[in-house]
């Protein structure tokens, strides 16, 4: 598997700002993976996405896109990437379909607009002006917009923000399918759910720095408490006991509880990513 993006010691400062917004970060986005950038508001996630999509150019450090210096890429770079923005990006007085047709016209290879719009439930609203769309509908249209050119790398900034669970599910399924077909995804979010359900690897981003880059599973193994919580009935009330997961096969107390007690529930105690984020970064997400 190749490397889609390789970022080394990236620094960026907005002209109007006194200190760096991105303070020296390094990471690789591997071809065919879903890479998540997770962090609280103001961490620099959108800024990082704008740098990788060549919208912000005065950065320091090295960025390679499939082995080529990002700065040397011309506008054909945009034939290959799809960008989903954090905020709606449509002509409000044009209909949803007119918008998609307009943007689609500029790409050499294009996706089937009808298929995409049907999938996200917008086809029946294709002739409605975007001005009349709800927030969630605009978010879904943004997602369709990002996929218009069958991109090789897909950038998604807070793609499920403002969506109800059903629509969030549809978008996540589509992202997973896109990856299954070989696509690469760079996704920024402050929602743990997105990361847990989608990302192959995640980077924790706080105040312009990356604290930890790993798979959600490894993070849980490394930082999560591994334990089993048993709830059982004793003298007419519910009691509970917690046992370490390591060596559970030899834990006499656990075994005798299983044999004698009236077990109601057993849970392996997984520390949530949210808790792990706080443990690792020392920063609350919200």
């Amino acid at each position: 598997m190749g490397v889609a993006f390789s970022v080394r010691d990236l620094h960026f400062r907005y002209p109007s700002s006194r200190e760096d917004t991105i303070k020296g970060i390094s990471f690789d986005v591997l071809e065919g993976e879903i890479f998540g950038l997770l962090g609280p508001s103001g961490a620099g996630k959108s800024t990082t996405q704008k740098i990788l999509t060549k919208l912000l150019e005065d950065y320091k450090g090295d960025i390679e896109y499939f082995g080529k210096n990002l700065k040397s890429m011309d506008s054909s770079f945009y034939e290959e990437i799809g960008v989903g923005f954090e905020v709606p990006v449509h002509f409000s007085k044009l209909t949803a379909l007119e918008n998609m047709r307009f943007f689609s016209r500029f790409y050499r290879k294009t996706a089937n607009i009808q298929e995409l719009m049907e999938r996200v439930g917008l086809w029946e609203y294709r002739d409605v002006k975007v001005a009349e769309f709800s927030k969630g509908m605009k978010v879904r249209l943004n997602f369709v917009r990002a996929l218009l050119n069958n991109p090789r790398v897909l950038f998604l900034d807070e793609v499920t923000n403002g969506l109800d669970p059903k629509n969030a599910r549809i978008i996540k399924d589509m992202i997973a399918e896109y990856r299954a077909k070989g696509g690469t995804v760079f996704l920024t979010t402050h929602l743990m759910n997105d990361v847990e359900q989608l990302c192959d690897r995640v980077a924790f981003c706080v105040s312009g720095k990356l604290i930890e880059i790993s798979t959600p599973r490894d993070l849980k193994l490394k930082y999560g408490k591994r334990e089993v919580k048993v709830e059982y009935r004793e003298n007419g009330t519910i009691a509970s006991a917690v046992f370490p997961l390591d060596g559970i096969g030899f834990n006499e107390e656990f075994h005798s509880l299983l044999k004698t007690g009236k077990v109601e529930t057993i849970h392996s105690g997984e520390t949530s990513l949210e808790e792990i984020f706080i443990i690792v970064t020392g920063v609350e997400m919200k």
Partner: protein
Amino acid sequence: MSSLIKLIAGELNRLVKYKILPVSLVTAIIWIVIFLFLSENEAREITPLLIFVDVAAMSILLLGASHHLEKQEGTIRTMMVMPISMGQILTAKTIASMILAIESAVVTSVALFFIHGITFNYIVLLLFVAIAGAAHAAIGFVLSLRSRDFTSMLGLLMGYMFLFTIPSILFSFGIIDAKYEWLLMVSPSHSASHLITSAVTGNFEIGMVIAGCLYLTFLSAVLFKFEVYPRFKDNAVRG
């Protein structure tokens, strides 16, 4: 090249959808109504002023309005991640703005012909309106990019008109002495006004006309290269 044509088509489509073209047609119709009440000579005198107002003030206003609207809608940002260059985007917008200026010049000319039978050298007028239109599109971009929103852009436009447009109008009413006209030509408004007046009246002072054309072309190039181009992307991305 074909991307540029698609961009221009998109701009023209939006001029209609966002009701900018209809509004500009309505103002042209107001001019026509005014012509109906004027004698031939009065109409001949006021025509350059009407075309000039469209080219030099309306075009800045409309460009500013559409710029700030598009910025609000975030659409410029999404155009920046398409396989097209910023030069193409700016060219398409400038051509759309020029087309708007030409459209009102054409409507005015047609009305003059049918109401008063007045004709003039249309090719020259078209050329001058195009040159002045491009320069004023550049000025429209500069004012848009230097303002936070449409309201503050209006403030800048007021300042601009006070400095450059009002003196030119005073001149056309004879309030400023003709011997100072060469000084006034520094104002893009007045250069435009001079060119349009020459085309409509048929009185060409060759030196002044050439100076006006060169000056406006030079000004467009300088503003696009050093003011508009470097700021446009940053302005769109910042949102």
